């Protein structure tokens, strides 16, 4: 084959012209975890239609939240310019904002527009009176129960921790199942489970003066309640090794009466195709509380933030506004079962028809609270996980474990100042 001597240069020229063309339009890169809904593509295509000149590239992150955190820290500490919008866990805005990695987004919305977002997620996205992320979808702890077993015994879903412990102990004996399963392994999930009990006892991690409050009576009471679950065998000792999936599999295989879990477990529990043995026999309720107090679920959920190092702040802002809009959140609720972070979507007739359980969820979500919004949260969490597991796995007394924890939290909080 004879080669045309001009072919190569011609190709190069054509290529360079072609690659020039898209550079007239901007490419915004969104870093987000794996998309289980399969709806990212559809929505982003619509965004690109509405905004000619902006292309969106999605950079898929690892599924594990802590792996994602480590990766983000590496990108942002290295002032990476290739990512414009980050989808971040509700516990990271303060940490990232205090490091100066995120753009303040206060001006993106009017005060009236912000009112539609659920108060908990919004509080989690604020740091020192400015907004650094916008709630995209949310998550909160819920109580799952076997409605068939409860009604057979003439029981109502428990409202207090005492009720839950009594019912779980009695039913686990009479039914030969595990009673109440939750997330008790030494990891982030344990902090959520603990905070839910702590808040329902009227306690907090930090008192209003900003001092750690792990030596207070409420923290003591909360830890005692959790220990009581293990002592009475309301919860099997194995919960100390459970994360979400261990609890979920045991519950949906019909092996437990009660479970604390995030909303994702609902969809699976109702799907016999995914091997659920409890479809149609599961109920949802807000988590219990201490007598007469209100219960508070721990918030999870993901939020969109704009990198300080972005080259395209306007386009990135457009993308964030679009993805967090009522329209997008409704789309995710209808097609992916994702939980909206906007109150108005929960009132939408179409959404409620597709997801009747959203009405129940909204009750829990409206009072859900974020974990301590502080830049040093991951360090606090590490210590709380360790301190609480020492109390629960039983090598030290609750009193001693909490005193040690208090000392460690004081040191971290002091270091940060």
């Amino acid at each position, binding site marked *: 084959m004879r080669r045309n001597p001009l072919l190569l240069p011609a190709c190069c020229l054509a290529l360079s012209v072609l690659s020039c063309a898209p550079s007239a339009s901007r490419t915004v890169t969104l870093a987000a975890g794996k998309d289980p809904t399969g709806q990212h593509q559809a929505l982003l295509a619509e965004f690109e239609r509405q905004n000619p000149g902006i292309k969106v590239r999605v950079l898929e992150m690892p599924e594990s939240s802590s792996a994602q955190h480590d990766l983000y820290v590496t990108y942002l500490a290295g002032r990476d310019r290739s990512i414009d919008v980050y989808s971040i866990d509700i516990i990271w805005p303060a940490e990232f904002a205090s490091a100066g990695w995120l753009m303040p987004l206060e001006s993106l919305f009017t005060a009236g527009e912000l009112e539609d977002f659920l108060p908990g997620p919004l509080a989690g996205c604020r740091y020192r009176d400015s907004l650094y992320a916008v709630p995209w979808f949310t998550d909160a702890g819920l109580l799952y129960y076997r409605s068939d077993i409860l009604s057979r015994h003439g029981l109502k879903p428990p409202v207090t921790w005492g009720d839950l412990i009594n019912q779980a102990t009695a039913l686990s004996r009479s039914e030969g199942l595990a009673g109440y399963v939750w997330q008790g392994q030494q990891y982030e999930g344990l902090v959520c489970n603990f905070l839910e009990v702590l808040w329902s006892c009227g306690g907090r991690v930090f008192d209003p003066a900003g001092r750690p409050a792990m030596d207070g009576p409420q923290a003591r009471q909360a830890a005692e309640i959790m220990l009581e679950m293990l002592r009475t065998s309301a919860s099997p000792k194995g919960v100390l*090794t459970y994360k979400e999936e261990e609890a979920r599999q045991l519950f949906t295989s019909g092996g437990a009466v009660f479970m604390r879990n995030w909303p994702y477990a609902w969809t699976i529990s109702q799907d016999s195709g995914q091997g659920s043995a409890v479809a149609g026999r599961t109920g949802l309720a807000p988590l219990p509380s201490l007598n007469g107090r209100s219960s508070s679920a721990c918030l999870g959920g993901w939020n969109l933030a704009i990198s300080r190092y972005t080259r395209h702040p306007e386009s990135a802002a457009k993308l964030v506004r679009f993805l967090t809009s009522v329209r997008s959140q409704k789309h995710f609720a209808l097609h992916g079962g994702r939980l909206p972070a906007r109150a108005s979507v929960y009132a939408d007739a179409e959404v409620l028809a597709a997801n009747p359980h959203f009405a129940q969820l909204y009750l829990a979500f409206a009072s859900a609270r974020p974990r301590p919004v502080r830049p040093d949260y991951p360090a606090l969490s590490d210590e709380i996980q360790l301190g609480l*597991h020492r109390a629960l796995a039983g*090598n030290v007394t609750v009193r001693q474990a909490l005193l040690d924890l208090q000392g460690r939290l004081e040191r971290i909080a002091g270091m940060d100042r």
Partner: protein
Amino acid sequence: MVVGRKPYVHGLLLAPALMAIGVVVFFPLLYSLYVSLTDFTLRNAGANLVGLRNYHALFTDLRFVASTVRTIAFVACSVTAEMLIGFGLALLMHQLARGRGLFRAVVLVPWAIPTVVSGLTWRWMFNDRLGAVNAALKAAGLIHQPLAWLAGSATAWAAIIVAEVWKTAPFVALIILAGLQMVPSELYEAATIDGAGRWRRFRHVTLPLLWPTLLLALLFRTIDALRVFDLIAVMTGGGPAGGTEVLSLYAHKVLFAHLDFGYGSALTFALFLLVMGCSVAYARRAVR
């Protein structure tokens, strides 16, 4: 000497390799040493040199001391078991007249599975209610109540060591098998003629000739076990109550949860010194 006239040619030819090693080995090492001498956290961008403060802090840090002790105990237990089982497997494979290739391939399967995957599998196998281990023990009548393996320190360690040995014994077996195959068969014949029995042949022919191979396997496994991270991170995350937190796990928490890069680097450098110390000790023994 041909190149003697231009001595710089040596250096010139070596330069690319030296540069590559410098960039990928020495730079990170020296940089982490430098960081360990500062108070660098991700939030205070400007790092100040603080001398040996981070290293001083190590000695009063109970979490560091405990995780170091745990790391060394883990290495001692798991490497001993791996060497014994691996040696046994290797002798078995060496005796095989037929099917050695197939056996070797089968034995290698655990080694080929990524640790995170096998760790997750073991985590589920040791699950108290849904796990295969308790199901088997129950079927055998050994337990009546489900045992929460990973909820107690001692049983969690047992589970971790089983998972580690399951994965790495085949690797040891393969190295030792290679060593066994290098022992000339004439030596065995000569020993047999001299009246040596099975045990004496093993003791006086196999073992001395296998010594360098055993040391090599021991070195590889010790270094690897000292750095254990993924298996424990997946199976227990350091729990219960911090009971399985090893040095690398603690360093990771300090680096990425506490974002304390100065102290975290001191921790990783301590681990490096531990690994380096072992390597040097082995190397000197091997030379002798």
